[in-house]
């Protein structure tokens, strides 16, 4: 049973009626009656709703045909939720709808807006039908309102949850992009890090690097942090752990491009520099890596 919401109709209804509003049987019967009305007048009410959507200039990212198609689905799901008093199907539909319209640029206020418009259109229709019988109108609204509110809530929350999921997915993608593990020679990987490293990114970096060492059978890794302005003690420790974990996989790590600030951080937190192999810049780091791997670079032709 949907929770009863307090409304101005309540006190008037309670005062003189003697109808047991808590009786779920009576309420269910009223719901059935109202659902029947909504189904009978489906075509007309749906059209009214679509017109109101156009009036209020919502869903401008979609075409008229698309709005009509979605409106039909929403209307039917709405009525079904009212009828069955279960909201799982509606929740699933809301997420499905969100998945489709979010890439089209539909905003939260638009989705909430159209659901509330539908709620109003249906409510007005009920007012019109039962205007002659104030008692009955109140009872019908008592049955309708809590369910309608729950529906609006379900759709809005479903939409927002889908948006949040998309944002998380995009953040993950951005993180992956910003720490590419690149193979520049046989057995030699480079990990250029740019920007801010927070503990989460540091962790993701380490995992990616270790997987890369295994996949590429790397023996030397050059981690270049020229593009990192600053690093706190936590992240510096992560870096040391990355070096140690790489060694456990048989790879040597050379860290290059330490800024003066980062050099200071490392000394301050007491990093055992014997454990860390560092070289000034990326070029120097690659040259040392090549030496370690037994490469020698020589020019074949005199440069012009």
């Amino acid at each position, binding site marked *: 049973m949907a929770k009863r919401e307090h409304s101005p109709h309540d006190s008037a209804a309670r005062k003189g009626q003697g109808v047991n509003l808590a009786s779920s049987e009576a309420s269910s019967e009223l719901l059935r009656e109202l659902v029947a009305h909504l189904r009978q007048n489906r075509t007309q009410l749906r059209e009214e709703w679509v017109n109101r959507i156009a009036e209020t200039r919502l869903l401008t990212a979609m075409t008229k045909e698309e709005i009509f198609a979605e409106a039909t689905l929403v209307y039917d799901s709405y009525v079904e939720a009212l009828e069955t008093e279960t909201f799982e199907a509606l929740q699933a539909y809301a997420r499905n709808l969100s998945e489709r319209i979010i890439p089209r640029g539909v905003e939260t206020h638009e989705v909430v807006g159209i659901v509330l418009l539908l709620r109003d259109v249906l409510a007005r229709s009920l007012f019109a039908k039962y205007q002659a019988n104030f008692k009955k109108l109140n009872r019908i609204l008592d049955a309708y309102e809590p369910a309608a509110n729950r529906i609006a809530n379900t759709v809005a929350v479903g939409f927002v949850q889908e948006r949040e999921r998309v944002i998380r997915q995009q953040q993950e993608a951005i993180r992956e992009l910003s720490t590419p593990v690149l193979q520049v020679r046989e057995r030699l990987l480079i990990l250029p890090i740019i920007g801010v490293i927070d503990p989460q990114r540091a962790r993701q970096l*380490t*995992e990616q690097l*270790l*997987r890369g*060492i*295994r996949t590429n*059978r790397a*023996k030397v890794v050059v981690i270049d942090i020229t593009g990192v302005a600053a690093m706190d003690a936590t992240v510096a420790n992560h870096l040391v*752990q*990355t070096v*140690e*974990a*790489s*060694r*456990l*996989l*048989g*790879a040597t790590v050379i860290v290059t491009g330490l800024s003066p600030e980062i050099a200071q951080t490392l000394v301050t937190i007491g990093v055992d520099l014997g454990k860390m192999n560092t070289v000034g810049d990326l070029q120097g780091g690659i040259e040392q890596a090549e030496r370690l791997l037994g490469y020698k670079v020589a020019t074949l032709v005199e440069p012009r």
Partner: protein
Amino acid sequence: MEVPILKQGAVLIATFQAALSDADLKHLRIGLVQQVVRFRSRAVIVDVTAMDVMDSFASRTLREIAHMIRLRGAETVIVGIQPEVAFAMVQLGLTLEGVATALDLEEGLAYLNEKFKTTN
């Protein structure tokens, strides 16, 4: 649990299984050194590819094995530590310091080849 130990010339290869108890590890510690003595091996490769967890006891035992084998003049190389295991180990401060490590059996043998070449 029996740990298979194979002989490849002067190198012994011990393949650790997934769920080794503390008792198994203690047994291995002395067992491996006894094999090194018996075959006059110059090196032992301990393959931990199958281990998806490495706790502090296992880590310490590996270090002890390496030290004991070094006292017999032989080298130990730990190979096959999985990325997830390596990550967990360093977070717990288990770095296997002083023990040689390599990516896998192939790399371990290549490392030993290099080492034997330069020391001969």
